């Protein structure tokens, strides 16, 4: 196992796509120390920014200590192994991840788990905007895998989701699950406006307050809903179908008790 400890507080963005378990496998400590990274415009090596130690436990797992909120692209494209971050981490963490696990004991930046295919990301703090959403212009989002967030998430989370599962214990921002076509998003608390906009499939389950776009239509009321094989949530829930403007068949499950304002929809049932 490799432990990276930030040598100082970082003031400008740092890009470290080299930090993945595969990339560290088979490298000596000296070789890891000279892996290229950038701090702002400067070309540096990993050893310039982090104290690097090795514990012989036979794995290439990585532990990062310190406030790394400005460190971007950790675990980009990783396929196996585990990265544990004790502190905050910056943007694009676990982007295009194809396997393995990332645990963040702190907050994660935007685009965490962007275009992820497989694997798990556990965030024990908050996650930023565009978590699990694809890069600009891309309409292929999270394909699979699981992201769990203990805190709140920002806006545009889970856009173009094609099959991933996202579970959020806190609140979620606007445009949750924008244009998603499959997969599931579960938010235990409140969701800001325009959840499920342009969705064509998949489901969004909201335990707290929310707002429904005019382009959704009420389908029925259900006592409980299954998020994935492990999570079942008790309701009752109003089930909305949409997004009509995309001729979609996505489903939004809005908690009945938390959303008394939706009562008028019942006349259509």
């Amino acid at each position: 196992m490799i432990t990276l400890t930030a040598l100082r507080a970082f003031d400008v963005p740092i890009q470290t796509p080299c930090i993945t378990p595969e990339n560290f496998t088979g490298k000596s400590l000296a070789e890891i120390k000279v892996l290229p990274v950038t701090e702002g415009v400067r070309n540096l090596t990993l050893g310039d920014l982090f104290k690097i130690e090795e514990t012989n436990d036979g794995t290439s797992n990585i532990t990062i200590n310190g406030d790394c909120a400005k460190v971007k692209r950790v675990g980009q494209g990783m396929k196996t192994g585990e990265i544990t971050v004790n502190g905050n981490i910056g943007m694009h963490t676990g982007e295009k991840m194809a396997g393995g696990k990332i645990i963040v004991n702190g907050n994660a930046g935007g685009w965490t788990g962007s275009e992820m295919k497989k694997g798990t990301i556990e965030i024990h703090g908050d996650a930023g905007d565009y978590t699990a959403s694809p890069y600009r212009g891309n309409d292929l989002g999270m394909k699979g895998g699981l992201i769990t967030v203990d805190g709140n998430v920002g806006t545009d989370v889970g856009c173009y989701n094609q099959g991933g599962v996202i579970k959020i214990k806190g609140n979620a921002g606007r445009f949750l699950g924008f244009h998603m076509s499959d997969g599931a998003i579960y938010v235990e608390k409140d969701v800001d406006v325009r959840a499920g906009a342009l969705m064509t499939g998949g489901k969004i389950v909201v335990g707290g307050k929310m707002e429904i776009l005019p382009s959704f239509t009420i389908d029925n009321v259900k006592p409980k809903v299954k998020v994935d094989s492990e999570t079942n949530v008790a309701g009752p829930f109003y089930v909305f179908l949409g997004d009509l403007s995309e001729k979609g068949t996505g489903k939004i499950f809005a908690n009945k008790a938390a959303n008394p304002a939706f009562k008028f929809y019942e006349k259509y049932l």
Partner: protein
Amino acid sequence: MVEQKLRATLITGRTIEQGVGKELGKGSVEYYDSCAVCFFDKSDMQKIGIKNGSTVKVTSKYGSVIVKAQRYPWGTNPGMVFIPCGSWANCITGDETFSMGMPLFKGFPVEVESAPNQPVLTLDELLLKQFGRNSL
């Protein structure tokens, strides 16, 4: 009934006077006159007891600014106030971009109160107050 504070939605944007003012020069009287103002619906003005030309203090989560009140000439928009874009408006606009580069310029809550006898700062005074420097 005159109330203490008006809670309203703020929009910032362009006006033709601001356009003319900025082209004449940011230090010009025209720019000052056209930008250090806040437009109100007539009913809102009565509510907090202000008239055309009264000074008001507009406060948001991000700061506050003193500007002159003016009646909005078109239609009725109770609950909406408008400040032309410029240094004064930007004392109270927000830095929340939702990760897309665009800060909070339009459609967020502010509080307005009458602030008689408080000066409306000139651009240089305003910059000095905000950033501790100017061109003087």
